[in-house]
């Protein structure tokens, strides 16, 4: 069989050779800039060009305005395309009175598989505000769920939380392309804490950085994430497809690790 590098150079759809699950995708429009073709159908067409089997999605409406409406829209997508999308429940701690009901709705009725925190857009400070996630963390602990965390401020706090909630797997987003001369704290934390992982997203693609991320934290701790359609899926998967790492490691990153964390 050809290597993933050779297959990518040839431009073939990759799903016949490797199962690809995008652990970090979105859906819907964004106020700050234009996100074209952000509907489920348009996204599936793009995924099919590359051969991405499934994408785990949270809705931009959940991140920027109404978290509950966004979750309902994700539910519509996963109900209509259950084999293509995996649902993230977005919980906004600024609405504590609605969290318990939304958790039940998302996991008992909607069939979501994991939780997404967006501390930046929800303006949650790690050190002083993280306690506001406690009801969600308690729920995730009881259900052994995975939580995708945007951003990397105060990794010390996340490390403390991950040590307390040992049944929860945390994915730190946007770690795929560190330039390796600035703050590596996220990678250090992922390296030493068993239930902390990183995803490959991050728009700035420093030369050679992805290989260094994999070498530092290990291929078992890295998941392919694109931030698509916020970013370009084909662009973001390139760093994995063309990385100078083994095909065995690429297969873990492209899908096997996500299957384990999402229990699919």
């Amino acid at each position, binding site marked *: 069989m050809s290597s993933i590098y050779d297959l990518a150079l040839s431009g073939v759809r990759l799903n016949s050779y490797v199962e690809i699950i995008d652990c970090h995708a979105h859906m819907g429009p964004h106020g700050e800039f234009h996100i*074209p*073709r952000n509907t489920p159908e348009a996204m599936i067409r793009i995924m099919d*060009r590359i051969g991405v089997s499934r994408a785990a999605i949270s809705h931009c409406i959940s991140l920027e305005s109404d978290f509950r409406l966004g979750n309902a829209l994700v539910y519509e997508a996963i109900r209509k395309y259950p084999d293509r999308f995996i649902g993230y429940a977005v919980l906004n701690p600024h609405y504590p009175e609605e969290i318990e009901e939304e958790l039940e709705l998302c996991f008992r009725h909607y069939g979501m598989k994991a939780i997404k925190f967006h501390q930046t857009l929800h303006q949650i400070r790690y050190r002083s505000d993280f306690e506001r996630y406690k009801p969600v963390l308690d729920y995730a602990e009881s259900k052994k769920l995975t939580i995708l965390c945007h951003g990397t401020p105060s990794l010390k706090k996340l490390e403390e939380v991950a040590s307390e909630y040992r049944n929860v797997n945390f994915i730190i987003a946007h770690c795929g392309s560190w330039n390796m001369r600035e703050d590596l704290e996220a990678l250090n934390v992922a390296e030493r804490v068993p239930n902390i992982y990183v995803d490959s997203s991050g728009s700035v693609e420093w030369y050679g950085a992805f290989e260094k991320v994999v070498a530092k934290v290990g291929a078992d701790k890295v998941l392919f994430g694109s931030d698509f359609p916020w*970013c370009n899926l084909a*662009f973001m998967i390139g760093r994995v*497809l*063309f990385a100078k790492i083994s095909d065995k490691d690429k297969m873990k990153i492209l899908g096997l690790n996500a299957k384990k964390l999402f229990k699919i």
Partner: protein
Amino acid sequence: MLKDIELFDCNVTIGRRAARNPGCAYMPKDIVSIMDYYRIDRALVSHAMCEGNGPLPGNEILLSDTAGYDRLIPCWTLLPNFTGELSEDGISNFIDKMLNIGVKVSKIFPYYHRYHLSEWCTGELFSKLEEHRIPLLMDFGITHYSESEWKIPWNDIYEICRNHKNLPVILLRVGGNVNRKLFPLLGRFENLHLDISYYISNDGLEIICEEFGAEHLLFGTGMPVYSPAGPLSMLIYSGISAREKRAIGSENLRRLINSVIE
């Protein structure tokens, strides 16, 4: 797929930088080795010293450093010449010299070099480039896409394209978050182009090809600072025709270079 498409990278630098990411190449032989891995046939290169210290002496060093590397095509960095930093002989003589030695593409760093792109500052330089149809690469030092909002003076780009309709303008490393400003310009100006090194808008290549034409896009990577993997993968897996991929891959840049009037 790539066997049918020549790749001519319009956005490459050689030379040492003050800040270097670990493992980042800077020697021509190492750049060529990266090109081999990513199947890039040729590259338009400038010297990092030209950004860091201005055109002199980086342009001359670029020529000597790339001598013997047929796949590395030199591209000179320019400045408005009011301070005499470009040439003591004036802009016209400088451009004539540049063309005489076979350098047919120019590059500017208006953000790092701290000058205005208004006509009163760059008009003379751009008029001379326009006279010869010399392509002008514009590098605004964008690292993260959010900087595309404020580092690129969008109204100046409008004025340049309007005032110098025969000047091929190529924006480098434009982020994917600027469609609300980029699209009205692409709709108005045939002489406006961008490289795809960081244009990460979802289906962005497809939309530009459909709405404005593939001739506006050039293959570029930003290596060795940035990885060619993203732009290469995006071109390969884009939902555009093989003809459009060939145009973006190399033909558009080749056409611009071949249109230079010596």
